[in-house]
């Protein structure tokens, strides 16, 4: 159980050392990532320049959703964001090499890259979280603190499951990578806003099929002690860890099925 983690640590350590070889370039990249992530938040501020509330949500509350989605997504991107390049491995046949090595294929694909500059995005989310928490006056209890700590890893697992499922599409078509973007980058964008603003069909899709509502919306209702504008059962607010576990199982099953479908391009 420990050994794969140690190995992953070594592989990632090597990646980080190599990225730190070009300090100036790395710093610029980190700063660029930090900067570009502010655009989405500027959009939030522009919206609230025009209205005091979006549905029942204030700017501080949306900032809270935004921050938590951004942080979860940034860590997901940090660990598995290179799945975006996965179709290339299928196209040029280098996935063959992965299959003959004595480790799980998904493990190898995930451990093959680690872009440290993506921490810039997490830093931006962290900054917005500090602002939101300072402005919100949350009535902290043990349960709420626990929820805040649990929801980030749960969010990472949900986002990762979506990403892995999307990457499986590459086994059927190698130039359809943008389908996945709709659910990964699109998913982050969705989770940054309260899902009650979306139309009913889109909202149901987000709650029950691609479970992005569990990344922020439901746990945030509990932490902020907010009445659910959708009036859904309160138990959903505590379900994120369970949904995350379920999503991981489903994603793992789809991945294994997809790998069996793999036919080498003959690299």
């Amino acid at each position, binding site marked *: 159980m420990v050994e794969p983690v140690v190995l992953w640590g070594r592989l990632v350590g090597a990646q980080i050392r190599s990225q730190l070889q070009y300090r100036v370039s790395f710093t610029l990249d980190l700063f660029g990532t930090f900067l570009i992530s502010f655009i989405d938040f500027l959009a939030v501020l522009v919206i609230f320049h025009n*209205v005091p509330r979006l549905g029942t949500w204030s700017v501080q509350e949306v900032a809270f959703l935004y921050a938590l989605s951004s942080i979860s997504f940034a860590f997901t991107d940090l660990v598995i964001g290179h799945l975006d390049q996965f179709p290339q491995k299928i196209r040029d046949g280098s996935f063959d090499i992965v299959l003959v090595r004595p480790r799980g294929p998904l493990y190898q694909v995930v451990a093959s890259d680690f872009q440290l500059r993506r921490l810039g995005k997490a830093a931006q989310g962290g900054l917005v979280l500090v602002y939101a928490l300072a402005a919100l006056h949350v009535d902290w209890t043990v349960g709420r603190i626990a929820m805040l700590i649990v929801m980030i890893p749960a969010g990472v697992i949900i986002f990762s499951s979506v990403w892995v499922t999307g990457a499986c599409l590459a086994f059927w078509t190698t130039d359809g990578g943008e389908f996945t973007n*709709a659910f990964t980058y699109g998913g982050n964008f969705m989770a940054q806003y309260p899902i009650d603003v979306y139309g009913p069909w889109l909202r149901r899709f987000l709650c029950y099929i691609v479970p992005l509502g569990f990344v922020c919306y439901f746990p945030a209702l509990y932490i902020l002690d907010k009445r659910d504008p959708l009036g859904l059962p309160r138990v959903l607010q505590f379900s994120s860890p369970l949904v995350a576990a379920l999503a991981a199982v489903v994603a793992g099953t789809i991945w294994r099925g997809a790998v069996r479908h793999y036919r080498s391009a003959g690299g």
Partner: protein
Amino acid sequence: MRLDWEIAKRGWRRYAAYPWATAAGVFTNSIFGFLQAYILLAVFNHRSDVGGYDAADTVTYVWLAQALIMTVYIFGWQELALRIRDGSIATDLSRPLDPQRYWLAFDLGRAPYHLLFRGVLPFIVGALVFQLNYPSPLEVVAFLLSLALAVVVSLGFRFLYNSAAFWLLDIRGVMTVAITVNLFLSGMVMPLSFFPDWLRSVAHALPFAAILQTPVDVWLGKHHGAGLAGVLALQLVWAAVLLGLGRVALRAGARRLVVQGG
């Protein structure tokens, strides 16, 4: 002219070679269209007018922006930068064809492909679900003209930031900043009419508005007569200024170009 036409045809064909990528793009643009449309519609629960836009204007804006995202090429483009870095630009410069003219012709072949195959479908998706605004036949002509100018302004801007590669080994940082600024100030992230007054004035004083906000406003019939001629003329001016700056950069860069190895 014949030569430009041939280059433009290649621009079209390059992108036509990946139909699955096109389908996937249409899907993704549609999803983003839905999300943005619903978020901005929630604003109209509280008020009926934002900076001269009503709800239908805004939703039309959102779907047009998604439909035009590839046509006006907001995201990263580094074909010129890569040719500078690997030295192929030396070959390009020795050809009896100016590189800027080449990329302009190529881009004017690419843009109609993206308009037809990445633009029309997501817009139809939006039109099926939401109440949108449609232009009169005359406004369609003005819109297409404005859109063509937007593509030229966009290429002018992309050519300019790519030529930074003559001075920098890696233009990734420059490109990130260029895309960020363009996304926000062109109106891609949010219609400029939603901006606070001071920021809207800043945005309209810069070339980026000519890349998206202007053609969309023309579609929405926000400009008439002399006003319409004015915004088209302004697009033309920005196209000329950016292409001119690109030429200066290309000439200055070519003088200091050192191609390593062979």
